[in-house]
């Protein structure tokens, strides 16, 4: 019997056994790891404990009965650990994606609250002047209603450059606005109930190739609140 080898085998048995017990208890207490990688890692450590026990039995001359089984079982150790680490990485990536998605949704909700409570009209228009998004203020002022089509809303009127004629198109915004940088221009909202003067600013939306997708339009009514209310009463 080689005493040095026996000491090494005894140390390996204690160490792998300790790994198995510590890892198992830690998993049961904390549940910090997904079940699949935990089971795979514990299986690998069980095999290594069995290998260390078999080695100790062999080196002390007690038995060589499980030597063949031990050799075969040991083949599984690297694939088990490899798959466990792969599963851990995948679950970690999924956690990170979930966290990022939650943060994105929270940010989106906050921005929507800001846009919806803003005291100016904010509308996103497509490349032909249809409104694809409107905040609460714009919805009220432009008398928007929900649309069944790809655009978000229909309007009883149309927003055109000040003193311009009303186009035949049923888009909410005149096409001349789309894709153009506009700063504080005088435009009018023209509806069957009258004409509301607006101060309009607009920024074009473009794709990576520079093609115009639409515009973000921000506007304020130039008439006072009293005049707007009177216009609303007239329409009723």
């Amino acid at each position, binding site marked *: 019997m080689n005493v040095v080898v026996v000491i090494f085998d005894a140390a*390996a048995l204690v160490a792998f056994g300790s790994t198995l017990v510590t890892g198992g208890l830690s998993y049961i207490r904390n549940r*910090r790891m997904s079940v699949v990688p935990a089971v795979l890692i514990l299986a690998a450590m069980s095999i*290594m404990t069995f290998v260390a026990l078999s080695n100790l039995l062999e080196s002390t001359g007690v038995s060589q009965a499980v030597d063949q089984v031990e050799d075969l079982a040991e083949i599984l150790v690297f694939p088990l650990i490899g798959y466990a680490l792969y599963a851990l990485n995948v679950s970690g990536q999924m956690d990170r994606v979930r966290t990022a998605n939650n943060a994105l949704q929270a940010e989106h909700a906050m921005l929507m609250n800001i846009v919806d409570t803003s005291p100016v009209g904010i509308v996103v228009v497509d490349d032909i002047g249809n409104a694809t998004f409107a905040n609460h203020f714009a919805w009220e002022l432009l008398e928007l209603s929900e649309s069944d089509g790809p655009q978000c809303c229909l309007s009883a009127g149309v927003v055109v450059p000040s003193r311009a004629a009303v186009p035949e198109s049923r888009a909410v915004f005149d096409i001349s606005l789309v894709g153009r940088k506009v700063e504080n221009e005088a435009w009018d909202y023209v509806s069957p109930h009258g004409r509301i003067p607006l101060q309009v600013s607009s920024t074009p939306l473009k794709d990576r190739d520079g093609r115009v997708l639409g515009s973000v339009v921000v506007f304020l009514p130039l008439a006072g609140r009293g005049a707007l209310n009177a216009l609303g009463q007239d329409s009723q």
Partner: protein
Amino acid sequence: MFQASEVFQLALAIVLSPLIIRSLTQSKLPARRNIATGLMSLTAAYVLTVVEGFAAEELMNALEHAAYAVAGVAFALSARTMSRFWSRQGGGST
């Protein structure tokens, strides 16, 4: 002489070790170095198992069993480190 299963497990270890080490470096496990040490020691043990069939049988056998012991200690340390880390961190998953 060496056995077929010993050569097979050595081949698996040599093929999978780089992939496993790469996974380890990308993971956020708190005991990555100890796990890597354990895996390298196991690979060394497999190499020595095959080599002992050709030369210096007693020495290689002793070194093989020493490598198993080192691997066991490394894995035990990693389990202890992770257990302590997770106890401090509380709930959630890694």
